[in-house]
């Protein structure tokens, strides 16, 4: 198949899956089979695309002009493929997990759930293959809208309230900042197409670039840069599989992916380093990742703690881009992948704990390692990956980010990264450690009868993603090769 038909095929998997899901709504087994089949096809398509990956960004399709100089474009480039592969792989895993979770939790409206799930993935594919800012924006908004029903899935007042914050912040920032930024880009450069090396001339007014950078960083609200991060904790009212895929992977990653893509293909590293607001934003990112860690420490609700941890980890990616050095971009790209696998494992574990033992608070988890050794083991591995310790993949992304800060000569930020990692240990890694090794009066030696794990489907998914965390440490080669082909990441 040609590149363009592959991209189209990749984009059309989700809509077709939705039709299949809706048609088979009355037969749950068939419905879930459709989801699994669709995600498997999607992964295959994306891998084939990876095999045919050309150099630079290749436009595969464009529409007629909607406005002078503005049209819809699809393009294939390394960053997009990376994102597409991660998202589609985790879709498959999450569907498997959701089968266990949703059924044992007896959630209502499961057909709607799976349908919107597929729709969100479709939007993510659109974002991954967007060839210009306008297309990106379109799918970005569509993603916000299509995930909203998932966020308010429970239908309670609390869910609705959370959904309101979610939509308000995401739509608000995108309309107030993102859209004007696109307009300003088009106004200044005459094009909004993603171009390796950036679209701006060398003599572009640096003030305009500064303004643009600020608009983009805040406009892509999904990147959860403080002070526009509130939507992420608010969205945690969603069922756990949703939180896992959307708020650890698809939605938030769409945010940082957009920032990375804009940094590399709209600004280009050279123009990026010329923008004066960059430095200011860098320190904001540094502040954001520290502050979110501190807030996370004070959360007793496990999902809320994970949410704030995500806010912190996303700031790593933004920071990587804003460093405007090759190692920073590499680190940012790696962080997208590593954090995706690490955080989704953590969310899966949180959901498994909820299903198996009905616990949602961190303070209740002490000693749980006896009941759920497998889950807690995976939790430990994943938290190590988030912290950035061997033997997990997170090591590499943190390593490159560190390298980036040093390359850029920002020692203060390097210190912030180290401090944040220490905080991560405190609020994440200590959870499984306490679950296994805390001895109090109630503690009894483990026996097989105590073991009470989540349903098999959940455990399968957890096992897979946790293994991935380790595998990414052992074999980061293919990933690094792919990332090194991003213009600016510099081999």
């Amino acid at each position, binding site marked *: 198949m040609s590149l363009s038909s592959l991209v189209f095929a990749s984009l059309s998997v989700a809509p077709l899956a939705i039709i299949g899901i809706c048609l088979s709504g009355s037969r749950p087994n068939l419905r879930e089979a459709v989801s699994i089949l669709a995600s498997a096809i999607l992964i295959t398509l994306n891998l084939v695309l990876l095999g045919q990956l050309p150099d630079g960004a290749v436009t595969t399709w464009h529409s007629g002009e909607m406005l002078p100089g503005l049209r819809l474009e699809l393009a294939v480039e390394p960053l997009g493929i990376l994102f597409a592969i991660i998202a589609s792989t985790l879709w498959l895993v999450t569907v498997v997990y959701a089968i266990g979770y949703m059924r044992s939790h007896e959630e209502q409206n499961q057909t709607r759930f799976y349908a919107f799930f597929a729709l969100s993935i479709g939007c993510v594919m659109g974002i991954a293959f967007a060839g210009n800012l306008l297309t990106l*924006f379109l799918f970005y908004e569509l993603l916000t809208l299509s995930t909203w029903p998932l966020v308010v899935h429970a239908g309670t007042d609390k869910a609705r309230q959370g959904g309101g914050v979610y939509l308000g912040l995401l739509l608000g920032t995108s*309309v*107030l900042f993102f859209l004007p930024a696109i307009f300003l880009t088009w106004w200044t450069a005459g094009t909004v197409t993603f171009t390796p090396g950036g679209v701006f001339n060398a003599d572009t007014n640096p003030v305009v670039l500064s303004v643009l950078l600020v608009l983009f960083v805040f406009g892509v609200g999904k990147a959860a840069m403080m002070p526009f991060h509130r939507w992420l904790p608010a969205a945690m009212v969603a069922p756990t599989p949703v939180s896992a895929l959307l708020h650890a992977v698809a939605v938030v990653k769409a945010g940082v992916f957009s920032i990375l893509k804009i940094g590399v293909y709209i600004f280009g590293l050279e123009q990026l380093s010329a923008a004066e607001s960059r430095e200011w934003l860098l320190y904001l990112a540094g502040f954001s990742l520290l502050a979110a860690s501190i807030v996370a420490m004070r959360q007793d609700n496990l999902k809320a703690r994970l949410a704030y941890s995500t806010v912190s980890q996303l700031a790593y990616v933004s920071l990587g881009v804003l460093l405007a050095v090759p190692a920073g971009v590499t680190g940012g790209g790696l962080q997208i992948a590593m954090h995706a696998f690490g955080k989704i494992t953590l969310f899966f574990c949180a959901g498994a704990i909820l299903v198996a033992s009905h616990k949602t608070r961190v303070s209740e988890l002490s000693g749980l390692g006896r009941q759920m050794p497998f889950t807690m083991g995976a939790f430990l591995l994943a938290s190590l990956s988030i912290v950035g310790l061997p033997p997990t993949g997170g090591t590499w992304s943190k390593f490159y980010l560190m390298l980036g800060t040093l390359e850029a000569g920002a020692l203060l930020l390097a210190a912030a990264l180290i401090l944040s990692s220490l905080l991560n240990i405190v609020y994440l890694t200590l959870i499984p450690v306490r679950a296994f090794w805390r001895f109090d009066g109630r503690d009894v030696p483990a026996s097989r009868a105590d073991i009470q794990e989540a349903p098999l489907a959940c455990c399968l998914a957890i096992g897979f993603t946790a293994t991935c965390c380790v595998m990414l440490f052992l074999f980061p080669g293919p990933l690094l090769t792919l990332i090194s082909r991003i213009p600016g990441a510099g081999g």
Partner: protein
Amino acid sequence: MLSQLPVLPVLLPLIGAPACALLRRPTLAWVFACLVAVLAFLCTVSLFTTTWQEGVQTYALGGWPSPWGIEYRIDLLNALVLLVVSGIGAAILLASRASVWQEIGETRRGLFYVACLLCLAGLLGIAATGDAFNLFVFLEISSLSTYALVAMGPDRRALLAAYNYLIMGTIGATFILIGIGFLYMLTGTLSMADLGERLPAMGESRTAFAAYAFIVVGVCLKLALFPLHLWLPGAYTRAPSIVTVFLAATSTKVALYVLIRFTYSVFHLEFSQLAQALDTVFIALGVIAVFAGSLVAIFEADLKRGLAYSSVAQIGFMVIGLGIGTVEGLQASLIHLFNHALMKGALFLALAAFILRVGSSNFSSLRGIGRRMPLATAAFVLAGISLIGIPGTAGFISKWYLVLAAAAQQQWILLGLILAGSLLTAVYIWRFVETAYAEPEGDSVIQRNEAPLGMLLVIVLLALLNLYFGFDSRLPVETAGGAAQALLGGDAS
């Protein structure tokens, strides 16, 4: 046949109305009215293409040439407005049956369609005529029939709303009449083209300014520009649902056309010193309208009334474009005129379908409507997204040009206000979405109960047009661009 084309769209409904009154059976009246409206629409399509290809079309009524007789003069601007009004009018009449049959008593149904045709004739007449006094007459024809239509609303408050509209509308029309009188005093002519040639030669005349002031206030009453909008929410809320669709999609558009026509073709305000002051006034009023209208819409408990206030806000956007005063601004204003007709047509028509099935437009009774009427609700949401101005919909195109016009004038604050205004739109549209897809209260089992087929088709068609013109915007953009160029550039197109 072709030489009569400029007058046909007006003549058909004007003659059709009394003929329609002769028909005894309401169904027959409906079919006849639809037939007339569709024919008129086909004529305007043909007129539009002719104007597009060959330039200005003129027709001298009764064979009396221009400065003496009444001349119909169709340039791109007229053609665009005619197209919008007759197209939406025909679509609404086609979709109207079920809603009218529910809301209007059996004896009045036939007369309802007579009034509709008269109103259509009036609106098309305003858009087609080149004579200032003739414009006033058509304005009154459309207004009087509108008062009657509003009064047919399902509950007694419609009567009061119609009465208030009548008082304000008549004051507005009389103001216009005074203005036209002053113009005649000054120049001795009533032909708008002739006026446009003579007035600039008069220099800065006080009479001309007074005339313009009267006309602007009068037209703004009809246009419901803040703060002269007081009649609009009442009339829109209490009128029969179909009438609300019709008014929202067509009547204010025509008023905007009149304002543009008088400002640029008759008074040539772009050359006057007054222009800048006026531009500021228009922009200020437009911005206030956007914010006041949207804020009220956000907190309104009744969706129909909320949408009425939203219309006040959207009129604000159009007037902002006018106030920017450049070709781009005018173009944006005209594009929004076109697109807003599509959006509000779809929104109010979907709402009419909701009222048909639920019996009320209160937010509380619309809970769960997304399951009862999935297609109509989806169309509503799509049109709502277009109203917000999300890329991929027609609304984006209008907002884009509006922002472009503001940026070209370096009016950055205005640009920010436009965006903030769009955001407010998002709030009240989202309020509906939340209600529509919320779980219904209590244990009531929701039956799927879509709108009648004819109505549903039109709703979906209008919503899809919003999408279509979001991707292929050549028709409104090029027409509006040509019309704006002709108005401001002075060269006849």
